[in-house]
């Protein structure tokens, strides 16, 4: 069974076709890279898959289940997690609380107005565990406002991983990072176990190439090339998109 199956997906904003008949089949455990120049419709595709915007036509299946019209808040409960290109975190809270909120999102405890959130080991311990995965355990209590950009990227990833997703959507996880920070994130992503499928967006081809088994090239909302790393890199259409004529 495919982990994620996107079928003939279309979306237009007014006269602008941002997603044009996109087909995508991601196998369980696969590492898929979606590349394309700025404005190719990569983030829109993610927003369609996560349900933040509704497609005009086409369908999305998650492990055989049709989720095209499922509200976006249901999708994390079905095993889908995402990170944002523009970091979207809770700036007034600590790193630990940010991750606890990710855990709480999937727990019925989130409706409980009576218990003390800091005294729930299932939240605090699991949050620390997720932070240990990304190497931030030592500064878990630090307010988010006192962290660096690279640390925040890792908090984003920790929050997604804390939800124990079956499919993880990473929207430009290397954007804005220094070379060292990039290496850290690369190692971190390599450690993610194979029972998680990963789809990563990147517009800079060199950064993410060695991560992926299969690559889709998006251009003006269309998948113009799809295949293994070698196939895509050597395809003349890829060169055309990235280098021009």
């Amino acid at each position, binding site marked *: 069974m495919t982990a994620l199956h996107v079928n003939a997906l279309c979306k237009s904003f007014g006269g602008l076709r941002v997603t044009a008949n996109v087909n995508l089949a991601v196998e369980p455990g696969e590492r898929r890279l979606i590349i394309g120049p700025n404005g190719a419709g990569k983030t829109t595709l993610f927003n369609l898959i*996560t349900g933040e915007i509704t497609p005009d036509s086409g369908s999305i299946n998650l492990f055989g289940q049709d989720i095209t019209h499922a509200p*976006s808040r249901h999708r994390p409960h079905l095993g889908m997690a995402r990170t944002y290109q523009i970091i*979207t975190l*809770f700036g007034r809270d600590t790193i630990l609380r940010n991750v606890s909120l990710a855990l*709480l999102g999937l727990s019925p405890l989130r*409706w409980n107005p*009576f218990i*003390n959130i800091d005294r729930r080991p299932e*939240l605090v311990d699991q949050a620390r565990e997720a932070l240990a995965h990304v190497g931030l355990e030592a500064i878990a209590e630090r307010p988010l406002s006192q962290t660096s950009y690279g640390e925040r990227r890792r908090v984003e990833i920790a929050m997604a991983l804390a939800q124990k997703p079956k499919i993880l959507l990473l929207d430009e996880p290397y954007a804005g990072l220094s070379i060292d920070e990039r290496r850290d994130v690369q190692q971190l992503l390599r450690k993610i176990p194979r029972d998680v499928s990963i789809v990563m967006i990147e517009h800079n081809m060199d950064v993410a190439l060695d991560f992926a088994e299969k690559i889709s090239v998006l251009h003006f909302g269309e998948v113009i090339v799809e295949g293994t790393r070698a196939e895509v890199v050597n395809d003349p259409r890829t060169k055309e998109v990235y280098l021009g004529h």
Partner: protein
Amino acid sequence: MSLRSPRFAALAISILLLLTLPAWVGNPYYINIASQILFWAVVALALNVLVGYAGLVSLGHAGLFGMAGYTAGLLLQAGHGHLVADIAAIVATLLTSAIFAILSLRSTGIGFLMITLALGQILWGIAYRWASLTNGDNGVNITTRPEFLGINLANASAFYYATLVVFGLAVISMAVFVRSPFGASVRGTRDQARRMNALGYNVWLIRFMAFLISGFWTGVAGLLFVYYNQFISPQVMALQTSAEVLLMVISGGTGTLLGPVVGAAIVVIMKNVVSAYIERWNLVLGVIFVAIISFMPEGLVPGTARLWRYGWHRLTSRKPSAGDKPGDRAQ
């Protein structure tokens, strides 16, 4: 909080002062003012759930407040008992809150504010113009206060203690709410609604529940108000009341437990005490608000805490630091 911490000491002293207030104040006039501060503080705490924690600024709470007062007043006037009238008042306020929430939560920010304002004005209009039901501008009189655990609440001290019990319950429930997972969810929808949705939270339903909690305590305070005055008229449902409560919350400090209480104390004292000496007390109140917003934009309670820490820091270390950022303590 450890038993020896200054916060615990401050809390213990406050509780002691509140418990013994009728003894050291003596004059029933001032005991009554203390009761007023306490039930307005309950409304301010209730509004703070929306303004401070959910990030939703409502200007319609006077309508909810009056809904409770009018329901109880009219039922008592019709000859029903206190228990029936009070329960009906709370149920009616919750239902009204639910309707308010369904209509206003289609939006946030200015849109939310305008819809709550309009809904509050509709309730005011009903109280004012539907005279066959509400007795219009003449208002509704009630003849008796209830008995509470066999104690008659007719005198000032007894009513003060009943109000103090309700106030205490409201503060405790807020303190528990703030630390709870649901409290964290509500604050999350204030700070990053989109992210909360992507994490699996039902943002709309969280805001709806927060509105009901806010409506519940507003209704409870409305009951205390109608029993305190033994009278209710459309005047209390006017926009002025909503604005005053909002000013209590903002001047004291949004998103804090103590802030709305301090704000309520300032407004009630200005209205009752200062107005005896200065005819244009509204002007004085305005000047105070402008001063608070200018020098402590985060509100009196977080602002004082900031100054305190800054002063403490300068005392304990020779090198002055840049100080703390505003709003650090606000949850």
